[in-house]
């Protein structure tokens, strides 16, 4: 498995995704009009896709990062362990993303 590059790519996506986060916070601090603009964007299909992608990038980068921690500490270098860590990060990242979005839809009532 060569998922190190995915760690980098998700990191880069998160890097530029912070613009969305900053926009959202600035809008909340600016007023109802600005905040409504952010909500209109995140409610649109492209906005929803971007936020979904951002959620996955964050969850994958988190778990993939934990995988690197295990390696930093000197564990998990056997071939089967490496495979397990990599698949764990991959499957865990997708699972956590779906979980967060189920929670989001449950709270938001499908908004």
């Amino acid at each position, binding site marked *: 498995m060569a998922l190190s590059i995915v760690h*980098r790519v998700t*990191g*880069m996506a*998160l*890097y530029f995704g*912070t*613009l969305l*986060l*900053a926009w959202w*916070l*600035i*809008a*909340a*601090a600016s*007023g*109802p009009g*600005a*905040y*409504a603009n952010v909500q209109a964007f995140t409610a649109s299909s492209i906005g929803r896709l971007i936020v979904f992608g951002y959620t996955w990038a*964050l969850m994958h980068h*988190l778990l993939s*990062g*934990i995988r690197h*921690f295990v390696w*930093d500490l000197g564990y998990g270098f056997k071939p089967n362990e490496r495979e397990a860590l990599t698949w764990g990060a991959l499957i865990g990242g997708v699972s956590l993303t779906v979980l*967060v979005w189920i*929670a*989001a839809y449950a*709270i*938001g*009532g499908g*908004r």
Partner: protein
Amino acid sequence: MSAQNSPAKSMRTPLARVRSLGASHSGTSDFWRQRLTAVAMTLLILPVIVIVLMLIGSNQAGAKLILGSLPIAIILLLFIVASAWHMKIGMQVVIEDYVHNEKLKLAGIMANNFFSFAVALASIYALLKLSSGV
């Protein structure tokens, strides 16, 4: 990197060159800080997700109320500082790995610093403004 490849130019022994630079005494400070901020965000990610979920469906007035509360603002401020630091180091590593033109590399590293600082400061300012109720 080039200093390591040209030992003839230095009278210092290899030991003197690396002494006290190990274990995060600035020799590998970025490596250490990247792990430090990663651990910080790993600890903070659950409360941050809960905060974001709490904000779903609320209008600006509701969002202001939630984001302006002290514990939530502090958690988000910690997360913003850790993430800005983490992403600045991460992007620098990527630039250093792939950009081999010296001037372009320096420009990239500078832009990376500007971007990371600007995003962090804008977010921090917004949160402080929400907290102060101005």
